[in-house]
Each structure stands twice: as C-alpha cells, then as structure tokens.
C-alpha cells in the first residue's frame, strides 16, 4: 500500500531535466518511465557481473543456442539426404517425418529456452507500477465531445429537413439490397429442382424400365451372390450410379435367414409393404434417416443395423424401425424383385423419403 501512496505523490513533481550533467542512463530511463506514470520500484540484477553464477548462466544460454544450430543443421541434413519417398512396409522412410519433427522441435525449444533463460535469469528482476488512469476522464472532456457531435448532427439539419433523411434512407435501402442480391441470388439453389429430394437413382427410367441393383464394380446382383446371413451394398444400375452423384441411393441388400425372413415379411405386411421383399431378400436404404451416415453395421444374429455416427439402431425384421438412439424414422425399404435374366431390380423407387429428415418431408 505504501508504495502506491508514494507513487501518487509523484504526480505533482517537477520533471527532471534530462540534460543535467552527471545523470546516469538509468536515471534517464527512470525519468522516462515516470513521465509515463510508471514507477520502477525494484530493479535488481540477479547475478553479479563477472561472477561464477553469471558465467554458468552465459554458458547455459550459449549452449542452448549452439544446440539449436546443431539441431537445425541436422534438420537440413535429414531433409536433404534421408530417404523420404513412401515405400510399403517398414523402413527408414517411415522415420523421415519423426526425425524432422524431433530436430525442428528440439531446435525451436533450444532457442526458446535459451531466450527464456536469458530473460529470466540474466536480466535484472524488476517491479514497476503503472497507473491505470481509469475513470480519470475529465467530465468536461466528455461534455465537449458530446456537444461537438450533437452540433455536427444539428448542422446537417435532418431534423429541420425531414425529407432529406427520409429520401436518404429510402435511397440507401435498395443500394444495400443491391450489395446483398448477387451473393444471396447467386448462391440460392432450389432444393426441389427435379424433385431431387424425393427421388433416388432407383426411379424407373423413362420407358418404365426397372433399374437393376448393381455392385460397386458394376456387376448386377443375382440372388445366389449373397449367402444367408449376408449383406451386400448395392447401387442403382444407372450411369454414375456408383458415385457420390447418387449419394442417396446406396442400399443394403440383406439375405435373411428363413425364420427372420418370415418375421420380416409379417412386419412388411403390417405396413402395407407386403411385396417389398423377394424371397428371403430385403433391401433397405443405407443412408441413415438421422444424419445421413451409412448405417451399415449389420448384426446378422440380432438383425440390428447400427449407424456408427450416432449409434442409432434399426431392427431389420421390423421394417428397420429405430429401436435405440436418436433416429426417429425407419430406414426406407426398396421394393425388389428378380427380372427375367435372374438379376435383382427395383420394382419402383423408394416409396419413402431417403436420407436425413427435413421440414417439408411429407
């Protein structure tokens, strides 16, 4: 507390004439600080000049800097000569990045701790006190600035000439809209173009041609391709069907065991999807109705389908009803059959909206 009151007393002091002969440099420094309302109350070298302690510290700091140089050189050497190109398996190329990291990191730590040791140990310790001058704003300053601003506003005379203000406002509003229009107008895109939110690649082609279910390599799928208790990711057999252009179309084709298939068929009938399965095969959208991840962790004994993103669980034998987790809507089922050549086709497109939910989903 005492230091503070003394400091207050400094306010009224005479400024020191810095040209007075015989002043040390520190006197001038302290005078400068005082002019900025800073009082250096404590300034004490930590090591005696020329002492053993000083020499030890200097050696330490110098050692750190030299270590930095050494490591930085090592970094360069490794960067230039170490084998770095990827080769399969284990080998020296796998140590390229770690070695760069170690040399770069340690050299930076070296220079960092060198500087820190210099500042922390070799420079004098100091305690200075600076005034905050908060709330010291003179009241009349505020008055003057305030009056000036009000005066300037008055000079514009918007109050006396209301037409000016109103017309300016009316004139500027469209200008602002002009600035926003290209951005909004350019970005805006109709989500319901081509009914894209409600159709997938399985929508029958123009001639009513049913779409085949194909595999990731483009081959159509036969019933015998999946063993009982197996599952296969299938795509619409259209151009770019196996690509992100049809991100809503990936479907999981599941070959259920006899008893599960029976249960599943019963469940289908309950919701009027009696003919959606073909034999013991059922196809469900792979796109989770919650957030759109591929819900594809199929447990063949419990017939649960788990989504790895938010752990929604769907019971396949009950129309893929969500039984756990945040999903609130069952996975849409694709009605399938086998065509005359023995390949799976979609009888029609999905009859429910595929993918995550949104406001206007009917």
């Amino acid at each position, binding site marked *: 507390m005492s230091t503070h009151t003394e400091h207050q007393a400094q306010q009224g002091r005479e400024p020191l004439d810095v040209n007075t002969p015989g002043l040390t440099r520190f006197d001038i420094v302290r005078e400068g600080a005082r002019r900025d309302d800073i*009082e250096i*109350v404590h300034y004490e070298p930590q090591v005696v000049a020329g002492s053993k302690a000083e020499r030890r510290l200097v050696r330490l700091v110098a050692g750190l800097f030299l270590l930095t140089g050494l490591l930085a050189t090592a970094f360069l050497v490794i960067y230039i000569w170490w084998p770095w190109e990827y080769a399969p398996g284990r080998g020296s190329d796998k140590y390229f990045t770690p*070695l760069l*990291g170690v040399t770069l990191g340690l050299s930076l730590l070296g220079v960092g701790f060198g*500087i820190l040791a210099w500042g922390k140990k070799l420079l004098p310790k100091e305690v*200075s006190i600076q005034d905050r001058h908060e709330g010291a704003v003179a009241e009349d300053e505020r008055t003057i600035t305030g009056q000036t601003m009000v005066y300037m506003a008055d000079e514009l005379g918007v109050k006396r000439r209301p037409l000016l203000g109103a017309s300016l406002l009316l004139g500027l509003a469209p200008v602002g809209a002009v600035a926003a229009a290209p951005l909004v107008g350019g*970005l805006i895109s109709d989500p319901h173009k081509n009914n894209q939110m409600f159709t997938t690649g399985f929508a029958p082609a123009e001639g009513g041609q049913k779409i085949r279910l194909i595999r990731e390599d483009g081959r159509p799928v036969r019933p015998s391709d999946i063993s009982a208790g197996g599952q296969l*990711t299938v795509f619409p057999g259209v151009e770019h069907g196996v690509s992100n252009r049809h991100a809503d179309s990936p479907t999981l084709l599941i070959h259920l065991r006899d008893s599960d298939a029976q249960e599943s068929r019963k469940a289908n009938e309950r919701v009027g999807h009696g003919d959606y399965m073909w034999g013991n095969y059922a196809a469900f959208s792979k796109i989770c109705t919650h957030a759109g991840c591929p819900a594809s962790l199929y447990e063949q004994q419990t017939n649960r389908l788990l989504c790895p993103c938010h752990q929604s669980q769907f019971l396949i034998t009950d129309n893929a009803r969500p039984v756990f987790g945040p999903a609130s809507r069952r996975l849409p089922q694709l009605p399938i059959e086998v065509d005359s050549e023995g390949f799976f086709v979609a009888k029609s497109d999905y009859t429910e909206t595929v993918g995550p*939910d949104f406001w206007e989903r009917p």
Partner: protein
Amino acid sequence: MKRRKFDLAAVPGNSAVALDDRFQVATPLRRLLNKVFPDHWSFLLGEIALFSFIVLLLTGTFLTFFFEPSMTEVVYDGSYAPLRGTPMSAAYASSLDLSFEVRGGLIMRQMHHWAALLFMAAIVVHMLRVFFTGAFRKPRETNWIIGSLLFWVGFLAGFTGYSLPDDGLSGTGLRIASAIMLSIPVIGSWVTSSIFGGEFPGTIIISRFFIAHVLLIPALLLALISVHLGLVFKQKHTQWPGPGRTNGNVVGERMFPRYAIKQGGFFMVVFGVIALMGGLFQINPIWLFGPYEAWVVSAASQPDWYVMFLDGSTRLMPAWQINIPIGDGYVIPPLFWPTVVLPGILVGLSTLYPFLEARHLKDRKSHNLLQRPRDVPARTAAGAMAVSFYVVLTLSGANDVIADKFQISLNAMTWAGRIGLLIVPPLAYYVTYRLCLGLQQHDREVLAHGVETGIIRRMPDGRFVEVHQPLSAAPHGDGHGELEYTGWVVPKKMNRLGALGPAVRGFFYPIEKPAEAPVSPGHPPVEPRPEREEIGSGESRR
C-alpha cells in the same frame, strides 16, 4: 567536393533522429516500451492460442501451394500403393500428394492439424482462466464477447479445414453438417441446397469451404484477435491482488526488455511443441480413410475434439420428432435440438454472462483485480457445472470408442451419458460450492489462528495442543491477532513465512543453493542490496 568521413557509429542515432523528424514516434514508442505487464503463469495461456494461430498461418500458407480445392474425379497414381488406381476427388488426391510426394509435406500437414487442435484447446483453457478469476467483469465485457466469438470462429475454421481433404472422415462430417442444416425448420432444405449448390454433396462445396478456410475465416480471426489484443493493451491487463497492487495500478515488468523476451521465447517453445507433436504423433491418417464415398464409413467416426461435444449431444438426444399436422404435414427432426438450438443457447449464454452476473450482483464498478475462484463460490460452481456439462457431452462424442476399448455396452454408454448430463452438472455445482466455502473457511482460520507449525506441546494439565504461528503481531497479547482477508494467497506453511528459511528453489528438483531471499513481485526484499544502490533505483521506494 570534399568527401565527409562516414561515421558508422553515428548511423543508428542519425537515422533515429531522421525518423522522429518525420513521424514523431519518440514519445509513443517510449510509452510502448515502458508499458507494464503483470507477471503470472496463467496470463500466458492466451498466448498459446495466439502463437498457435501464427503457426497455423505459416503452415497453412505452405499447404495452399500444393492443395487443389476441386471435386473433379481423378484416378490416383501416386506413390502410396494401397490407393493406386482408386478414383477420387482432386482434393483428396492432392492431399495425398501433399503427404507422400512433397518432401516434408506430411510434417507440415500434421503440424497444421496439431496447431489447430492446440489453438482451440488453448482458447478453452484461457477462457476458463478468465471466467474463474472474474477477469471478464467491467470494463472487459467486450473482450470476453470477442473471446467467445473467437472460439466459435475457430470452430468454423477447424470444421472447414477438417472437411477439405475430402477423405472418408471429412466427407462423413460434411454429410452430417448437411443433415444439420437440413433439420432447420422451414428454411433447412433451402439453406443446404444453397450452400452445397444442389443436392449433397454436389461438386462445389470443397471450393467454397476452401475460400472460407483460407481467406474469409482467417481474416475474421485476424481481425478479432487484433481487436482482442488491442483492448488488452488499451485497458491494461488485470492482476492478482497482492502487496502494492490496487484496482488503480498495474504491478509487473515493463514490456522491454524482460516481458518481450519472455514472450519471444514462449513463442519458440509453443512452435517447438507443435513441431514435436507434428513429427512424433500421427494425426488424421487420411490415406487409411480412403476417398469419401457416400456408402463408406468407418467405426469410430468422430469429429475433432472441439466439435465432439455436438456429436455427443446428438448421440444422447432421444428420438423426439415433432410432427406438425398442417397440409401435407411438416417435421422438426430430433437432430435440430442438439445441433442448432443447443449451440445457439451456448453462444447466447456465454456472451451474455458478464452482463447477467453484473445485473444479478448489481455491480457497476470497474474491476482490475482478479478474484480467487474460492472467493466467488456461486460463479465458480456455475463454471464447474458448465465444464462438467461440456465434458459429459464430449465424452459421449467418443462413447463408441470408450465402449469398445473398455468393454462396456454401447447402449449403456448412451444411457450413462443421458443420465449423467442431467445429474453430473448439479452435482458438480454443489460439490464445488462446498469446496469453495471450505477453502474460504480454512483461509480465515489461518488468518485468525496462524499457521500450523507441526510442533505438539503438552500442556501442564496433560492435554496436547499444536502450536500455531500467528501471522501478525498479537495486539491483545493472547497470540490471536486477526488479520483481514485481502483476496490473496494466505501462507499456510512455515517456510512461506520465512520461519524455516526460504523455500527451496528449483522447478522439478531442488537446486542445492537456497534462494537468496524470498522474492515476490511488489514485495521488495527487506534489506536492499548494495548493488541496488549503485544502480540508483533504491531511493524511489523511500
């Protein structure tokens, strides 16, 4: 013409004069050099964020030289054999090339990612420091708001960056982001379609995220950081209470030389830690995730840690769907609440907190002295509540990894999170509140009765008592002079009082030589040393 002799030694002086003639910088420069900063380790946490941001700018600029923000399909033909011949987007292919074909590119990418994680982590830790010490109070509310905005802008920077490589993980993240936008009532599908340029994923999102990630968001971050630092400068840093420290002054070190040197050294240390992590710890091995394909996903698909709390809230959300039976019927999906409404509430609460607290306490004064968390139990407890809420959500964001590695049922983890989210925060509030009160009471006890000495004395009547060392001279003669609590650490060990000699120095292990004298800022040694007299700084105290 006679050639004047060129005096090399006079060059700095002369150029300084020449500069000052033109720009009149002498006074402002001296003010800058002389500015006093308080010294405390917790004041360096924000610097970690600042320095990692600088590393982010440096490494990020390097990455832009090689990254191609395009979703054009290419067939990979680089040196990473397990992906050769795979069709993928140009963005993913260039990210692979960046890692495998560019010499030293992988460490740059890894440093960039680690620096991003460190940036967000340091922001959070710094924010907690500011919150628990009450540094956000008037006049610093603006800086608190800017700070919390920095978290959310950093969050966006992180998410856009996470999405750019277009690998399996980032595509999954994008898909979820699109689903979140879709879930907004009324405008959801329009927002999604406008941002993705059509149906997900479209062909433009990577380019849009790229320009946001390398130009718009960094510019905003830079602007906010500049204002943040400018305000710290203008309003001067807060300080802990202590001897000589008042609400009206700053006690510490002048900016030059010591403070600035420490900052420079610390920058190098932060940079060095990031470089070490970038080299030694593999982060986001995009080559293992493969290109993003809408039908491919990996178990344990998670966002980076600072987004994980949203992932957690989404996982814990029950499947409550709201159907609005008007016309064809409208839907508010359960995804909307934990991913749009919850962050909205969090932004609102965190930015408004300083005003809410001031209003509640009817406190209109300016505060430049920090508070010890124990002295404001209600705020500390509320903070603990918020932290535990966040931690439960974040852990739930990784609940499948926890379930798998610790062999707990996944469904049990989800339920534990749901129940924990309701129970843990109030519990944390209560426990923290009681802890604060207990610590306060102990402080007051020491002030009233003194420090435990460990000396047991047997009284004439046979009782044993422990001798307490009072902290002040006894005014009443009974050894019990009560001191007033000043909001600062109360010494609780004998060597803190100087009774057992000075505390042994050394950070990890004691240095053989004991300290010359106990030194604390603003508390000059009792006996001035002779060399201090020589420098001539001694009298100023008297």
